[in-house]
Each structure stands twice: as C-alpha cells, then as structure tokens.
C-alpha cells in the first residue's frame, strides 16, 4: 500500500473525529456568537411585578451540564466493568473500569470548577454546600480513595478484585447521596432541564446547541476512554 493511499484511508477512517472537532467549534461559536441572551423573570420593586431581565450567565450551562453528565456516565461505566471484573476476573475489564473512573474524576473536577465559577457570580460565593455540590464532592472523595487504594496494591489480580469491590460498595452510596444530601439544605440549583411535568423549559435554539454539546461531550468521553485503554494495551503488549 502506498503512503498516499494510507493517508486517504486515514482521513476516511477518522471522519468522525473531524466531525467531532467541527461540532465542538460550532457549539463554541454558537454559544458565544449566535445564541440570543436568555431572558429570565426578575422581581422589579419599582413596579411591583416580574419583568424579564437579560441573563448572560446561562452560557456556562452549555459546558457545565455535559461535564457533570459525562462524569455520571463514566462512574456508571466504571461500576458495570467492576461487576464484570468480579464475575470473570478479566484484566481488560479492570483496565476499562480504572480508565472510566479516571475520566469520571477528571470530568467531575471540571464540572465542580465550572459550577463553582458560575456560583460565584450567581449566588455570591464559590462554595455554598448546595446538594449537588455536596454530592459531587463526595463522589470526588470516593474516587480519589479508589485510586489511593489501587496504588497501594502491588499484585495485579488482587488490585483488580479489591478495587472492584470498593467501586461497587461506593455505588451503593448513590441512593443515599441522591435522597439524603438534599435533606440537609435547600437547593439553590436551577431547576432540571425537564420539569416535573416533563415540559421543556428552553428555547428551540438553546435546546439544539445544548443537546449537541451533550452529544459531542459524550462522544468525546467515549473516544478518550477507548484511546486510553488502547494506549495501555499497546504499551504493555496485550
């Protein structure tokens, strides 16, 4: 095969990566250049009524929400592969679980940082012990402990089994984090995208950009995950 042929194949084999790149640029451009600024109701004391007010802070949502979504997906993937480790003892499943946890931790930290910056300008301080801030902090602590545990076990099979057990035990905490932490404090968090009646609360343009961002970030996670797993497999030759 000539090198020109190989290059052509290379371009077509990786078409979706170019698409991802293009999509990310489009989302970025649309967020800052194309989307109209969201209007939200604000109480006007002068006229005693609700009046629409421009709210430019909405832009961070297009990046912040996909990050916490990817972190959640990553931890779910890690748990599924941890169960697989205990069922089959597969080395590959252990690698996949550890890599997914790593990416989950990375995206979790990014979601916390972006949320914290947003909170500074919306609520007045970087940290407010909002239920969602608290539960993502606990998740970051748990997966930090997961990697501390992994680094303390030299034998590969023992490491795979014990860290899988810890990951599954950590997953048992999810219902408690979801139901208990919100009892501690009133949430300041903006309402979920879908309200109780399942009604969308977004403009069409905003919804399109937001959902594309969500999809692109999810594909990016899949790619990063696959890449990291392949790199380790190539390095260790298995």
């Amino acid at each position: 095969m000539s090198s020109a042929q190989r290059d052509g194949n290379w371009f077509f084999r990786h078409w979706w990566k170019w698409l991802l790149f293009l999509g990310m640029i489009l989302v970025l451009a649309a967020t800052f250049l194309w989307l109209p600024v969201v209007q939200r109701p604000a109480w006007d004391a002068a006229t005693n009524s609700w009046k629409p007010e421009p709210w430019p802070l909405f832009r961070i949502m297009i990046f912040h929400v996909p990050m916490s979504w990817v972190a959640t997906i990553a931890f779910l993937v890690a748990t599924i592969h941890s169960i697989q480790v205990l069922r089959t003892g597969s080395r590959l499943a252990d690698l996949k679980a550890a890599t997914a946890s790593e990416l989950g931790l990375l995206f979790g930290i990014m979601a916390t940082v972006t949320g914290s910056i947003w909170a500074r300008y919306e609520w007045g301080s970087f940290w407010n012990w909002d239920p969602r801030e608290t539960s993502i902090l606990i998740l970051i602590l748990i997966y930090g402990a997961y990697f501390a545990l992994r680094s303390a076990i030299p034998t590969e099979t023992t490491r795979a089994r014990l860290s899988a057990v810890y990951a599954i035990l950590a997953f048992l905490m999810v219902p408690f984090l979801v139901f208990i932490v919100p009892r501690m404090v009133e949430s300041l968090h903006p309402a979920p995208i879908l309200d109780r009646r399942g009604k969308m609360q977004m403009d069409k343009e905003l919804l399109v950009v937001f959902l594309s961002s969500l999809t692109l970030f999810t594909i990016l996670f899949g790619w990063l995950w696959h890449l990291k797993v392949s790199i380790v497999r190539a390095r260790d030759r298995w």
Partner: protein
Amino acid sequence: MSSASWISRTLAILAKDARAELRTRYALNAVLLFALSSLVAVSMSLAGARPGPDMLAAFLWILMVFAAMAGLPRSFVHEEERQTSGWLKLSASPAMVYCGKFAFNLLLILLVELVTVPIFLVLLNVTPVHPAAFCLAIGLGCLGLAAAGTLVAAIVARTQNRGSLFAALALPLLLPVIVTGTIATRESLSPGTGAVAWGEVRVLLSYAVVVFTGGLLLFEFVWND
C-alpha cells in the same frame, strides 16, 4: 450445613477475637485512649463556651467516627500480621468470617461509646432532652459504622500500607451516616422537637442493612485469593 452449626461457628470467631482482644487489649486501649484524649481536647478548647445542640451533635459524631477508625482496621490487619488468615479460611466460610468480624466490631464500637458518650455528656454539660431517641441515633450509627468498617478493614488488610489507608477509604463511605446521625442527634438534644426523628432513623437503619448485605455479598472476593 445446619443453621445451628453455622451460628455456633460464627460465634466461635467472635469468641476467638474477643479472647485475643482481652489478652492484648490492643484495639480497646488504643480506641478508648484516643476517644478520651480527643474528648478532653474538644472540651478544653471550647474553654467554657456553651455550644448549641447542632454544634454538640457535630462534635459527638466526629469523635465517634474517628474513635471507630482507630480500632476497626485491627480486626483484619492482625490476622494478616500473625499470618492466621490462612487457618481461618480453612476453618470457616467467608460469610461466617464476615458475620463474626462484624459482630466483634459492633461490640467494640458499642463498648467504646458506652464509655465515651457519658463522659462527653458530663464534660460538656449536656442533657439529652429525649434520652431514648439519643440512644437510638447513636446505636444505629454504630451499626452503620461497623457494617462499612468491617468490609473496608478487610480490603485495607490486603494492601501494603495497612491501616493508614483506612480513614481515606472509609470516610467517604461513612458520610451519609455522619450527616444523618448528626441530624438525628441534634433533634434529640433540642427541646421542643418531636421525640424521634423517624426519617433519619429510617435512613440510618436502611444504610446499615444495605451496606451489611452488600458487604456479605462482596466479602468473598476480598477474603479468598
């Protein structure tokens, strides 16, 4: 195997651990002294200030959790140190070992709380407004501590730096217990509230059940090679 012999073997593990503990008093001494000295540190640094029920509940739970952390890892680490875990694997099934160790840890924590909580009440001059609800909150908290602590202790015993990792691994898992236990204790210390915070009691109980059951299912993977 009949259930009678299952229970008797589990009790035998509990009795073995209790006897070993009474001979050396390693965990008991360490935990009791740790609890007492941190209790004295808290009450001295308060320097006569009179904190409200929410502060007191938080102090009590921090003391309880860290005292438990000083003692819980011993239950499995000493098997590895004396290289007796192999013998234990031959003579009992993983479920028996888990239940026996869980019972021993629960006894240890309850014993420690039985000493430290009254001293806490005396030193900080606290009267529980609802004594039954207060005891219920602490007792259920001990159940949760023992359930999560037993499995994490088994994991930690297999690692290189045994013991020092325990707090890092156990604390994030125990946060639900700490949060709910503190709320339940606060309610039992403040006058004018309902006697028992049933919502918190339910959460503490379900936490203990979920973690104990999960531990029972997962323990085999930690214990056997």
